[in-house]
């Protein structure tokens, strides 16, 4: 059974990894015209790409051709609209003899000419000025010319990098032909189907054995102890996240494959994040089943795992898609700010406000969740109610990440780094949100001299994508399954403060029964040295504990119990051990 499972998984992943290499794209005139709104660039692009029309290209070839094309087109556009060296010479000559005025410029190119208009917006400060030397004059004019090229010509008449990125993606996505376009269901079966099936077959390793702790051989395993397989898995994950966030144009074959599911759910074509959501959900479900098989003797683990599977499938995946189908805003009801860092971004606020009653409800719900629900529930149950029962990141960590939980660093040094790092992200998230709201209400793009737009961009790229995605998941096989939750998540930081100082949750240490074996610390995904408390007979009250309950499960002496108790008694320690 497990053998069959491993084979199925290998085939599934094998096909999945081959797919981008067998994806073929065929371009044609209409497609190019459709993707390029602007007629001029569209004609230019068509001219450049024409030799490839009707020919199947690999994704790599296609994208390199588009890159080349964009370069050429922009060069042509620059030739047509930017100030040429002759233009500059003329201007210099003119300005040498007299001070420049508007008439001169109009005289050069005509009143309604693009050059005239751009010169007036970028070079009007030269009007009426005199210069110390010809050299200074020329330098200034050249600088203006450069600015015009960069900020006027390319964005308005050509293809700037932002547009280029989207174009590459949409052109690649919409030009898929051949096997991948013709057989999405077969491919879905071969990739998602086989991997999921294989995953389910593999969990019979656990079910064929009697119920109980299943940690045998973890430190001999090539994936679970930072050995060769772990390195391969980690590298693939990191590569996947980098492509997902930064180079989606190379993964259009995968996205094309899941189009039918997306149409079924939301009525729209799939995007990279639909693919990601689907992969995420299927992984959580399959590996959740594995987690349940592994801990089938432990009802806390069963209920909790069931809960993250439920929230991921329904709240994170299905409901948002169905909302879109109903023409409502895409909304994940369980995703709380500041983890959901763009909740207060203008586009989100505007879109919710514009969406009638449901939109307003979502707005109020989102705010209430973060500012009332989160602290209140954390007070009663500890942050575990979110981190290991509801959260999507937590859901992935507790299911897909379970094989790697032992790899978290337990040293005091790691704890010190953790505190600096996670609270820095919290401060960053709060400051960014304040900045964004300030801009939203005042219209000013600057707060205390910091540009709120670049602030949110930096946060999105470095924290949202880089930290939460690339490092957060890609590093599972190297640093354990809670790298993001432990070192980065601003919501975890926020709940951690509540949990540490005002909460009923604690892990009780059972008198003097600890034998310092270290199982609890080893299997704590948050890198908490649980043993250091347990062996002193001290209860565990730690900001970072996500209440996964695994320490209590693996303890061979029944020393640990997750409990909600009255706040004033919770740090009491037993008198069986002297401290």
């Amino acid at each position: 059974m497990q053998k069959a499972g491993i084979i199925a998984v290998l085939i599934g992943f094998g096909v999945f990894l081959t797919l981008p290499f067998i994806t073929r794209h065929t371009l044609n005139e209409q497609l190019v015209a459709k993707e390029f709104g602007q007629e001029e660039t569209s004609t230019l692009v068509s001219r450049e790409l024409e030799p490839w029309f009707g020919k199947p290209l690999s994704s790599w070839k296609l994208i390199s051709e588009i890159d080349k094309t964009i370069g050429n087109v922009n060069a042509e556009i620059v030739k047509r609209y930017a100030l040429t060296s002759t233009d500059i010479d003329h201007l210099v000559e003119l300005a040498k003899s007299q001070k420049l005025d508007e008439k001169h410029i109009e005289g050069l190119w005509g009143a309604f000419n693009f050059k005239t208009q751009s010169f007036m917006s970028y070079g009007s400060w030269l009007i009426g000025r005199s210069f110390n030397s010809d050299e200074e004059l020329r330098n200034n004019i050249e600088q203006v010319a450069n600015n015009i090229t960069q900020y006027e010509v390319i964005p308005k008449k050509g293809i700037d990098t932002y547009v280029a990125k989207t174009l590459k993606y949409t052109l690649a996505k919409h030009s898929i032909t051949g096997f991948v376009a013709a057989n999405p269901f077969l491919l879905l079966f071969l990739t998602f189907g086989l991997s999921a099936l294989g995953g389910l077959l593999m969990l019979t390793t656990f079910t064929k054995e009697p119920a109980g702790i299943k940690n045998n051989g973890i430190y001999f395993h090539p994936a679970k102890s930072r050995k060769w397989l772990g390195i391969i898995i980690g590298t693939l994950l990191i590569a996947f996240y980098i492509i997902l966030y930064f180079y989606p144009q190379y993964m259009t074959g995968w996205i094309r494959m899941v189009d039918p599911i997306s149409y079924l759910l939301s009525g729209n074509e799939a995007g990279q994040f639909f693919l990601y959501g689907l992969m995420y959900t299927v992984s959580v479900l399959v590996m959740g089943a594995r987690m349940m098989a592994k801990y089938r003797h432990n009802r806390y683990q069963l209920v909790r795992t069931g809960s993250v599977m439920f929230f991921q499938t329904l709240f994170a995946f299905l409901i948002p898609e169905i909302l879109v189908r109903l023409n409502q805003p895409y909304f994940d009801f369980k995703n709380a700010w500041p983890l959901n860092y763009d909740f207060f971004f203008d586009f989100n606020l505007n879109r919710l406000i514009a969406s009638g009653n449901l939109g307003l409800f979502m707005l109020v719900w989102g705010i209430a969740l973060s500012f009332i629900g989160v602290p209140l529930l954390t007070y009663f149950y500890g942050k575990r109610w979110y981190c290991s029962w509801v959260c999507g990141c937590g859901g992935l960590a507790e299911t897909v990440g379970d094989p790697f939980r032992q790899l978290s660093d337990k040293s005091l040094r790691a704890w010190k780094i953790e505190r600096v790092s996670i609270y820095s992200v919290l401060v960053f998230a709060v400051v960014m949100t304040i900045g964004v709201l300030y801009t939203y209400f005042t219209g000013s793009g600057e707060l205390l001299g910091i540009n709120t737009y670049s602030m949110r961009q930096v946060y999105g790229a470095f924290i949202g994508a880089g930290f939460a995605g690339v490092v957060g998941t890609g590093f599972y096989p190297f640093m354990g399954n809670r790298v993001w939750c432990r070192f980065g998540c601003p919501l975890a930081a926020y709940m951690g403060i509540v949990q540490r100082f005002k909460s009923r949750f604690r892990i009780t240490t059972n008198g003097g029964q600890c034998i310092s074996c270290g199982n609890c610390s080893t299997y704590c995904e948050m890198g908490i040295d649980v043993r250091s408390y347990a062996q002193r007979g001290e209860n565990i009250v730690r900001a970072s504990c996500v209440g996964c309950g695994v320490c209590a499960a693996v303890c061979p002496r029944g020393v640990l119990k997750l409990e909600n108790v009255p706040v004033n008694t919770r740090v009491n320690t037993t008198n069986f051990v002297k401290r």
Partner: protein
Amino acid sequence: MHIVIIGNGIAGITTARHVRKLSDHQITVISSESEYFFSRTALMYIYMGHMKFEHTQPYENWFWKKNRIDLVFDRVTELDTDAKTLQLKTGKSINYDKLVLALGSVPRPLPTPGANLKGVQPLYSKQDLEQLEETTKGVKQAVVIGGGLIGIELAEMLHSRGIHVTMAVREKSYWDIVLPKEEAEMISKHIKARGIDLRLDTLVGSIHGAEKVDAVTLNTGETLACQFVGATIGVMPNIKFVEDSPIETNRGILVDEHLQTNIEDVFAIGDCAEIRTPDPGRRPIEAVWYTGRIMGETLAETLCGTPTPYRPGIWYNSAKFMDLEYQTYGQVPTTYEEDLDSLYWEDIVAERCLRIVYEKATKKVKGFNALGLRLRHELCDEWIAREQSLAYVLEHLEQLDFDPEFYTNYLSKAKANLEAIA
């Protein structure tokens, strides 16, 4: 003052840590087993791949220097209590003002013919574990001799590596010298169900092989092929090293209630110590983790100027037999004829049981045994110390529950059942 501790196990290390907390004395800990303190109780998990050796070290390596506890990785070969000096194997000598002997145990040697063959070994030290890793390479069948706690751990370890294990146990039921019949039977069943070939009432007559073991013959006459024999028939205090010294020994190193030997300034704690006059309900030698720790805590007080008698309180212990957890508190004898009696509840299918021991005449509760259930240590201790009545204990039984959340509340089942009997 220079306090020298021989042995870096739980007893020695606890003494060192607490002396440091209480004083500025110079502390030296000597051990020939490992550079740093590790948890002996976790050795099995290294072999089973749950942990690496480093995970069994309860303190990070910087801890010792920071707390000014000098560690010496060497063997003490001679002891001169008059000159107060120790001779180390590497030739160094160390003077002490106070000496703490925390020497631990040694495995009881197997008296069986053939016990010196390759592939026959005990399990106690880090070195034993390393050797085990070597000797069990390629092994298909193993025989474990002895039905104690280490025996079952060794059986589980071998089993986890796919080795077929036969356990030869002298007793009629597993560990029935310590456990009442019902508990012993539940454990026996559990072990068998996990695939261990448990042979009760069985002795190994002889071990065969040319150089390496290849079979054992049981007292039943049956011969079992095996490439490994685990010699786990118990441990005894490690006193060889003091036998030539004036320090008085019996089975262990004899100590008074302040844990001092007959020689002034020489103390003994942990597995190697034998208490001359143990408290009621306690035995002279208790080779478990907890007593080693409590002795260390107590001795540190004495060494730092507050003479403190060793009062371990109410006995408790715990173990895990493959997947079956065991906890015990207070007095739980194996048989009930005289002044004690017990109430017993079990759920055979779910593998849970609870025994409450009480005094026949007064109905005062004296002890608890639990399998498959986690009980609250603090409450068990409090109820036994306060001599709560059986009726009270039954009424409040559910408060003992320490199982994880959402577990079936077996204690309320037990309560209903036991109230009906009582």
